[in-house]
């Protein structure tokens, strides 16, 4: 893999020739707040705790009462498109390659005027709904769509880049010998993926659903053993250059506390997949996927990791396995940083399954993953319990840690 001095992926820069330039990186605290929520699909605005004013762009001080008590709140994004233009010129190399570009000003029902990219169906005077996604450099970017249904016309090249719909894309699912892997293959195939590589450690071994898989058009079994560097590297050499989406379905949560007999040996063995397997995958596939995503045409890519929600906060009843997933989640954070500006979006899907994977649950995870890809999200949480834990984790992880002990 090509690395620069800082051992980062070779990022897009002014001197990198054919590599697509990226938009400017976010630089203010507020920009990171907007981005962190946009990564979950939320549009947040600041509200004044004292006078209730809603404001944008982000501020330190309320312009209505000078209070510094400002809180972020999710909004529905409804408003009116008050003005629009089509840009044919830009001072940024990234945007110059994506002209013309439609942008507009929206008066939100909650008060402020915001700027947003416009879907083709949105025109001045229309009621619109504004949603938030993250762009190639990790900025929150707002997109306005007309609220009434209208036939979309023309290309939306830039907006297509914010998302990663599986249509016409090549997908690797790292482990299909589980119900989740199988559901993921079906979901990607049903939504137009061009070629799906269904990974399994040993394709000669039988597993549930294997027959179904081998009969699907556009699906091929691929030998992929995350415990083996050579296995991962071999597959990467074969398909890495054409891969748009990698879905890592190899993580699985096991019961067992740190006091259980044999927990050390089990952890050591699982780490080969959960931790080192993820690193092997990244080492082999990150660079070819970055190159593919930096090319011309439909350029965005995605890397999906499926984690237990206990990767965020340890549940002692599955304490060892949760610890491994926490390590893997931490790795995925550094992967996201490495991918910044490359056009490969890192999506973490958190679920609350802590037992057998039934097909209904697996389908829910696959559907949520698809939704996350189609909406350009970076975080998706599946299941009532997982959403509850995620919310509490966002509020206060140290309280959540103590609460999980009692469960």
């Amino acid at each position, binding site marked *: 893999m090509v690395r620069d001095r800082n051992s980062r992926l070779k990022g897009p820069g002014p001197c990198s020739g054919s590599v697509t330039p990226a*938009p*400017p990186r*976010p*630089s*203010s605290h*507020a*920009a990171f707040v*907007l981005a962190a929520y946009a990564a979950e699909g939320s549009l947040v605005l600041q509200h004044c705790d004292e006078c209730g004013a809603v404001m*944008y*762009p*982000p501020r330190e001080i309320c*312009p209505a009462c000078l209070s510094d008590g400002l809180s972020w709140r999710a909004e529905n994004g409804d408003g009116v498109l*008050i*003005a*629009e*233009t*089509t*840009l*044919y*010129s*830009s*001072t*940024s190399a*990234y*945007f110059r390659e994506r002209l013309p*570009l439609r*942008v*507009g*000003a929206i*008066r939100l029902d909650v008060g402020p*005027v*915001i*700027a*947003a*990219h416009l879907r083709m169906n949105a025109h*001045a005077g229309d009621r619109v709904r504004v949603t938030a996604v993250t*762009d190639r450099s990790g*900025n*929150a*970017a*707002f997109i306005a769509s007309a609220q009434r249904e209208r036939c979309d016309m023309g290309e939306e090249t830039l907006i297509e880049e914010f998302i990663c719909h599986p249509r016409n894309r090549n997908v690797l699912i790292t482990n299909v010998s589980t119900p989740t892997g199988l559901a993921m293959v079906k979901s990607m195939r049903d939504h137009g993926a061009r070629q799906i590589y269904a990974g399994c450690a040993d394709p000669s071994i039988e597993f549930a659903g294997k027959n179904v898989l081998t009969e699907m058009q556009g699906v091929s079994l691929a030998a992929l053993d995350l415990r083996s560097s050579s296995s991962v590297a071999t597959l990467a050499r074969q398909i890495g250059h054409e891969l748009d989406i990698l879905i890592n379905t190899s993580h699985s949560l096991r019961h067992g506390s740190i006091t259980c007999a044999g927990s050390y040996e089990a952890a050591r063995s699982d780490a080969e997949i959960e931790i080192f397997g993820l690193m092997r995958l990244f080492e082999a596939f990150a660079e070819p996927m970055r190159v593919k995503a930096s090319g011309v045409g439909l350029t965005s890519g995605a890397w999906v990791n499926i984690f237990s929600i206990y990767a965020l906060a340890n549940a002692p009843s599955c304490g060892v396995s949760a610890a491994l997933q926490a390590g893997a989640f931490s790795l995925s954070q550094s992967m996201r940083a490495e991918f910044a500006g490359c056009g490969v979006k890192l999506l973490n899907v958190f679920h609350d399954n802590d037992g057998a994977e039934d097909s209904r649950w697996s389908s829910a995870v696959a559907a949520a993953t698809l939704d996350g890809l189609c909406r350009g999200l970076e975080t998706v949480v599946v299941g009532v319990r997982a959403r509850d834990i995620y919310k509490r984790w966002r509020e206060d992880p140290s309280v959540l840690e103590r609460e999980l002990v009692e469960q």
Partner: protein
Amino acid sequence: MSSSGAGKRVDYGGVAIAAPTTIAYERFSRRPAQWWIGRALREMIECAGLEVRAVDGLSVSSFTLLPDTVVGLTEHFGLTPRWVDQIPMGGASALVALRRAARAVQARDADIIACIGGDTNGPDSFGATVAGFSRFSQDAMYPYGAAGPNANFAMITRAYMQKYGARREDFGAICVAQRENALKTPHAMMKRPLSMEEYLSARLIADPLRLFDCVMPCAGAEGFLVLREETALSLGIPYVRLLSAIERHNAFPEDDIQLRGGWAVDVGDMWSMSGVRPDDIDLFESYDDYPVVCMMQIEDLGFCRKGEAAEFIRSHTLTVNGSFPHNTSGGQLSVGQAGAAGGYLGTVEAIRQLTGQTFGPSVRNARYALVSGFGMINFDRGVCSAAAILGLGRAGG
């Protein structure tokens, strides 16, 4: 919004503005802003026949001066002033600098103040200025095409056209007349005549704005001296008087989209303080980063009612010898936008016109000029607005 607090404002009696100075613009320059500002300082003191040490006040405006401030420039230029100021207000810089300097010389906090706007322009400086312009634009505009002010003024222009019925040809009339004025300005970036057909069919920049609706970034400097009339008379230099001046920031924040500027708040104050009427004005130097802004100023400063600037333009000629001489040196649209010097261009040209020191043709028997400034697209609109009425003090030549 009321225009002023309790009580009548003190007039600017005894204030003189002299030594209109322009350092010929260049499209790109390897010289830094310090060079451009220093050249302007030297030229204006030579023009006034002054020793450097006679300058005891310095006010500068520049986007490309960093990491220096006006403080660094005092040491750089060997000045020991007792009054300094730095006005980061883009297109409103000259008029805000003038207002403050006028009060300083009136109060004798300083005797002779050099007011200078100057910027350099490298191949990447415009992009860098746009990229780092403000926190609001970084957070809330830059992710939508890094457009600088083009996107905002495209939306404003379209909204203005829809609300008031202005046509592309009306904006074109402003640009075509300014180009004619610019043909006699030796350092103008745009030296070829511009026809209405060329204006209308130029390449799109941000719909409905086309190439000739936009200024060309360049390097340059402009400035003038602010002093007391008695000092100007003893130096024997031509000067103009400051009859009135207004400034306003962040006016009408509740407006959906900017179709009026802060001038509308203070226009009554400006005319009543000046003692002259719109009919008395011999030339109007408006801020012209985009022609729609000229229309807003024609309305908000009282030459016609709101929404009627297009009709006003159709019934006037805007060239130097026309019925409504406007941006008589060609304005930024034809001469170029030399960063913060763009905010000085109109004021310097008005002093030239009134004192008979123009590069090209002058407005005959001009006694009164209105100058207007507008600046700083912090997010989606220009925040600063200012205007001043100048009257002839002592003519040159």
